[in-house]
């Protein structure tokens, strides 16, 4: 199997359906499983909540909650009970989905191929390297942005933002185009940033995985195999930072965008 085939194979989703009605089964399954993991863990924790003497895990979860609520308080003016759970969901879910990137790239595809008996079965276990996932989240956020813009500013207030922002009343056509670009770029940049980072990260993992496998033949493996392990470890540690940072950025930008939507028209 050549290098190009190897990489392409790894970056293809296991899907059913045709055209638009294609479903990426691996993306859906992994992301739903991770969501379920959050819910089940939360429910199990909820049964043994301690007000006065929180245990280790409750402390850990509380510190995450605290972290999220501090960010919401800093970046979000006013009060909306939806924002904090939304931010928490984004942070936890995105982080977990990103974390799938740190699992050795060949492990799950290999196991999956063993189980299904199909040596060419596709499996891509990082849902955030699927644009559908990141765009789904950013579009949901976008819907909320539009909804709250209408709710807080009112229809006319929202329209005024398009007409007179940022250059005042003498450049209305330019204003409309500028604001439109600005608004549309919000969900797009959210989705593409996360997708791009994780996709690139996955690609680097794949390239590192190729070092020991395809390049090394015979005695040369003695040199290439340790190098692969070393590089893999280095990239893994760096990537651990990246996945956390990306989850954090997605969360903070969501809070900020929704905060902007909550500002009164002026």
């Amino acid at each position: 199997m050549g290098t190009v085939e190897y990489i392409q194979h790894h970056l293809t989703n296991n899907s059913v359906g045709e055209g638009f009605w294609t479903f990426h089964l691996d993306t859906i399954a992994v992301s739903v499983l991770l969501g379920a993991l959050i819910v089940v863990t939360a429910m199990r924790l909820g049964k043994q909540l301690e007000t006065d003497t929180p245990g280790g895990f409750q402390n850990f979860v509380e510190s995450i909650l605290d972290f999220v609520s501090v960010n919401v308080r800093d970046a979000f003016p006013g009060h909306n009970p939806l924002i904090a759970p939304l931010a928490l969901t984004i942070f936890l879910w995105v982080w977990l989905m990103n974390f799938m990137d740190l699992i050795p790239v060949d492990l799950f595809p290999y196991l999956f191929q063993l189980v299904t008996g199909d040596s060419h079965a596709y499996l891509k276990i990082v849902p955030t390297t699927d644009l559908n996932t990141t765009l789904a989240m950013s579009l949901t956020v976008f819907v909320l942005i539009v909804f709250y813009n209408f709710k807080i500013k009112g229809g006319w207030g929202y329209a005024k933002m398009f007409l007179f922002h940022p250059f005042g009343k003498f450049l209305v056509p330019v204003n409309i185009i500028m604001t439109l670009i600005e608004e549309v770029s919000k969900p797009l940049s959210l989705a593409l940033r996360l997708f791009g980072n994780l996709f690139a990260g996955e690609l680097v993992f794949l390239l590192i995985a190729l070092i020991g496998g395809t390049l090394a033949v015979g005695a040369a493996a003695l040199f290439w195999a340790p190098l692969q392990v070393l590089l893999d470890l280095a990239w893994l540690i760096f990537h651990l930072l990246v996945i956390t940072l990306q989850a954090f950025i997605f969360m903070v930008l969501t809070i900020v965008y929704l905060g902007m939507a909550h500002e009164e028209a002026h």
Partner: protein
Amino acid sequence: MNINATLLIQMIAFMLLIWFVNKVLWGPLSKLMEDRQKRISDGLSAAEKGKHELELAENKAKEVLKEAKTQAQNILGQAEKRGSEIVEDAKVKATEEAGRIKASAQAEIEQEVSRAREELRKEVASIAVSGAEKILGKEIDAATHNDMLETLVKSI
């Protein structure tokens, strides 16, 4: 990259997850944390209040103690005064009693003395009469010589 119906599934999954997270994670836990915060601040203010009250109570106790001490001092002084008064009184009374007893004893003695003297006079008179009888060898009429006898008795 191909955008397809997976997007719709993921949107639904995302919204459901937000709902679930709010229901089972954010809701209960943030309420718990708020409760705890409230309890802690309540506890701290209660402690502060308790400290203040303790201070007040201590001050009050000090005052009461001081008052009690002065009162005790007063009572002690009064008692001492009263004691010495009683002693003085008793002394006076005792002296009076002693005087009285002495006076009555003296009176009794004088009475006794005068009684004895009377007795003695009578005795002496009769002795004198009987002596005179013996000397004169005849009866002396007591009635006739009564005046003489009276003078005699008185002179003794």
